C-alpha cells in the first residue's frame, strides 16, 4: 500500500501543460454522426436557426492534441466528465480547440486506496477568441490490488 505521495515536483510541473491549438469546423456530418450515436437518429441535427446539438462536441474534441501524463499507478478510471457552452454551436463555424492538463490531486485511503486525479480540459474558442465550449474530464489512477470491494464510493 502506498503511504507516500507520488506527486513529485516533476509531476506537479505538468499542471498547465497544453497541446498545440488546432482548428476544427462544426460540420453537418459531425453533427449528424453525434446525433446518430446519442439519439439513434439525426433528425434536427441542424436547427432552422443554424445551431447544432451540443453532443457534437464529442466528435470535435478528438481533433485536439491530447495531453499525455505519466502512468504512476497501474489502473485507471474515468471519474467525471462535463461539457460547458456559453452559447449553442453553429453549423460551419470554425473553432480553435486546445487541450490542457488543469490539475493533479491525490487521495489517501478510501475505496480505491491511494489514488491520483488528473483533470484535463479542451477549450473551444471562436474567431473572436471567446471560449464558446469546454469539455472537462477527470481520470483517476489507482492500484486495483489496494482497492477494496464496495459499491458507490
Amino acid at each position, binding site marked *: 500500500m502506498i503511504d507516500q505521495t507520488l506527486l513529485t515536483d516533476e509531476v506537479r510541473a505538468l499542471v498547465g501543460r497544453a497541446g498545440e491549438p488546432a482548428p476544427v469546423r462544426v460540420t453537418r456530418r459531425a453533427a449528424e*454522426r*453525434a446525433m*446518430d*450515436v*446519442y*439519439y*439513434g437518429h439525426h433528425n434536427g441535427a441542424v*436547427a432552422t436557426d443554424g*445551431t447544432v*446539438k*451540443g*453532443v457534437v462536441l*464529442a*466528435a470535435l*474534441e*478528438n481533433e485536439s492534441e491530447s495531453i499525455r501524463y505519466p502512468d504512476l499507478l497501474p489502473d485507471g*478510471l*474515468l*471519474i*467525471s*466528465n*462535463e*461539457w*460547458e*457552452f*456559453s*452559447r*449553442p454551436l453553429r453549423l460551419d463555424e470554425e473553432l480553435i480547440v486546445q487541450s490542457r492538463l488543469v490539475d493533479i490531486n491525490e487521495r489517501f485511503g478510501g475505496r480505491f486506496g491511494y489514488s491520483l486525479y488528473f483533470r484535463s480540459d479542451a477549450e473551444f474558442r471562436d474567431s473572436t477568441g471567446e471560449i464558446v465550449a469546454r469539455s472537462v*474530464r477527470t481520470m483517476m489512477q489507482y492500484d486495483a490490488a489496494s482497492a477494496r470491494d464496495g*459499491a*458507490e*464510493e
Partner: protein
Amino acid sequence: MTALPAVTEGEELPALELTPDLGQVIRFCGLTWVFPAFFYDVEAARAQGMPGTLLPGPLKLGLIYRAIDDWLGDRGFIRHVRAAHRRPDITGRPITVAGRVARVYEEDGAQRADLELAVLNERGEPSVRGFAVVQFHP
C-alpha cells in the same frame, strides 16, 4: 426583470429509458476515436472483472444531455452538463436517465435552471450522478 420560464422547482423530467447495445457503443468509439477493448470485447471486459462490456462514461454524459434536450425542446439551450461516474453499466442492460428541476433563477440577465440528474441501472441504483444548467430563451 423578465418573467421566469414556465418550469417549477421540483418538476421531474420525463424518464428516458434505454438499453444501449454494442452497435451504439461501437458507433460512439468511432465518433470519438477511442477504442479501449473492454468497450467491445467481452473477454477483455471479463479480464477486468466485469460481467460484460462496459458502457463508456462519455456516452452516458451524452445520454444525459439527450434526456435534458428532450425535455427542454426549443425553450432554451444546455449551458452545462456534468456526469460523475459511480458504478459501471454493462452494455445491453437497461438504464434510465431521470432528473428534476432543482432551482430556477435569473443570472447575468438570463433565466436559468439547475437540474439534478442520475443514470439508474436495472436495480434502480445510480451509476451516474448528473448536474446541468439550462438557459431559457427570452
